């Protein structure tokens, strides 16, 4: 067997809840350290390396200095994986892009000090808006078992597979009562599965934190909205919560 792939983890603007899911693998992390060689992971270990076989990127890009840092990491990495919705689409951090202006956003948070140079920010971007991304692991937070599957696939030289069917499918398999029948607007018909429909199964509508499937079935969504007497606005307003582009226009 060849030497273990050199793996590094980096975080940008985010809550670091996705790397926590890796810690939450508990004993399985020990198995993971047998499969790969973790050479850089600022939150966990002291140390660094000049280049990496796989770089895992968490968080969104919101500053010029971060853009330069991610470009530098990309140059030194054979493969680059964006993990967590912030890295995939900008995630919840993208909400600030919807406000009237970034100056307004800065004033609301920092008041009179808003113009100090170290508080500079630009519109939130997902990692693939700045550099090439080889694989995406969606979700807010990521599903730890999906993360494990992706790492194993990459370490074995295979392309990892992420579900491309809607949350409704997983929800039906769990035999949940449809939340539309309980007077809730749920994004399950459009949202990418892989979470096990965790929110609807806990009585809460899906917010599409893993983004939408490729080419979501818009007609089906419109039929549902019509049946339950909702307008498209209910969807477009809700779907931008996790930085998902509203692909449900007519």
């Amino acid at each position, binding site marked *: 067997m060849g030497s273990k792939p050199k793996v590094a983890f980096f975080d940008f603007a985010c809550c670091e809840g996705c790397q926590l899911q890796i810690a939450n693998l508990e004993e399985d992390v020990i198995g993971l350290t047998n499969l790969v060689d973790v050479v850089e992971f600022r939150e966990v270990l002291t140390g660094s390396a000049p280049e990496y076989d796989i770089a895992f990127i968490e968080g969104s890009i919101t500053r010029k200095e971060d853009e330069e840092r991610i470009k530098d990491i990309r140059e030194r990495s054979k493969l680059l994986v964006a993990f967590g919705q912030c890295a995939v689409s900008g995630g919840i951090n993208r909400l600030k892009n919807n406000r009237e202006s970034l100056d307004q956003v800065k004033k609301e948070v920092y008041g009179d000090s808003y113009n100090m140079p170290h508080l500079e920010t630009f519109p939130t971007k997902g990692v693939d808006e700045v550099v090439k991304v080889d694989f995406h692991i969606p979700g807010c937070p990521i599903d730890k078992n999906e993360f494990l599957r992706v790492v194993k696939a990459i370490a074995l030289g295979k392309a990892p597979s992420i579900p491309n069917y809607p949350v409704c499918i997983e929800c039906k398999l769990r035999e949940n009562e449809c939340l539309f029948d309980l007077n809730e607007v749920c994004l399950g018909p459009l949202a990418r599965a892989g979470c096990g429909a965790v*929110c609807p199964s806990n009585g809460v509508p899906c917010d599409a934190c893993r983004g939408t499937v490729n080419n979501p079935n818009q007609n089906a969504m419109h039929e549902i909205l019509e049946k339950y007497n909702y307008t498209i606005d209910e969807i477009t307003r809700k779907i931008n919560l996790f930085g998902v582009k509203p692909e449900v226009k007519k």
Partner: protein
Amino acid sequence: MSKNIKIDVHHITRVEGHGNIVVDIKEGNVNKIEWQVPEAPRFFEAMVIGREYHEVATITSRICGICSIGHTFASLKATEAAMGIEISDLTKNLRELLLHGETLQSHILHVCYLVVPDLLKVNSVIPLIKSHTDIILLVTRLHRLANELCEIIGGRTTHPIRARVGRFSMMPTKKELEILKKRLVESVDDLKKLAEVVKSLAGGIPDFTRETEYLSLTNDKEYAFYEGECITNDINTPLHVDGYKNMVNEFVVPQSTAKYGKFNRESFMVGALARYNNNYKQLPSLSASVAGMLGLDGVNYNPFMNNIAQVVECVFAVERSIEIIDELLQTELKTEKKEINIKAGRGVGAVEVPRGILFHEYEYDENGICTNANCVIPTNLNHNNIQLDFEKYVKENLAIGEKEMGFNLEMMVRAYDPCISCSTHFLNIKFK
């Protein structure tokens, strides 16, 4: 004595978020001692504006992955205060239980994975997997238990799903609670062993003290986490959380994207040691005995002892969780209806999270749309205290040389368990 010391730690490791340490001493003269916070600001207070009241906790939970449960509760409490929503004892008990799950999860992670490597002088927990396998397995058992508690009660370990405005969207079953209780009772042995391990390493904790102001919640009933009023060692009467702005007095400094705070002194400290110092007399028997065993016997001014207070709070979290489950087992666990009477208003919510007291404040219009928000994050409140600890520590310890000083300053930052992503950024001056 070394005359020149130059320390420049860019992005200190084994902390959540980004921080730098800069020390520059020439010919024994201090040119610079600075704790810097260059974390990318994320502007949560601006992100919630225009969103509906039931979405706000979903958004602000994402301030921090490690204390997402605490952020959820501070957020829900603020929204409920703004709209005059009362919660049932059942909801309160479930919230308190969930909060203890998070405290246990976070403290175990911090003390065992991030701090213990310092005490054993290794670069991370990874080499310990081979050298200290039994202890690492014990730690993963406790960490897993804490996470499973959060999953059973909150629906997910991170970013809880079931905790909603005014209620829980789903109840645990009695069976789940009974199993959870059994496992918590069994975990006491592991906790005692962990305390023994920490005791055997406690000689590595630097001998340093700086008395400061300690700010936390307090209440008559118990060692406060979920609710209470604000207390410090510099005031005699607890203050209502509504007046938090007059206590935290946040300000912006050039070396940090996180704001700093102060109250009656130049700085204050929040977190496990502040809670311990203010409320240690209310610790139940087991946590009190572990505190004594680990050398915490009343008010303590050594910031490095914050990690010891965290171990004590792990024991408390388990002791108290067992009591709450006993109460829940006597209650009918029925999902409550979601009927919210939407009202315009403003409210403050405060809760003790692993790193200290956390405040959220929101203002809503008559349609339940958020028009104003302010979140004051415990790590922010500690930045100023870290800076002043640095200054005293460096001046008192010039003789130890650059290498050991650098190591100990990093260790001091870790002792505070900073959660820097959380702390950037938050202050809204638009409130009149």
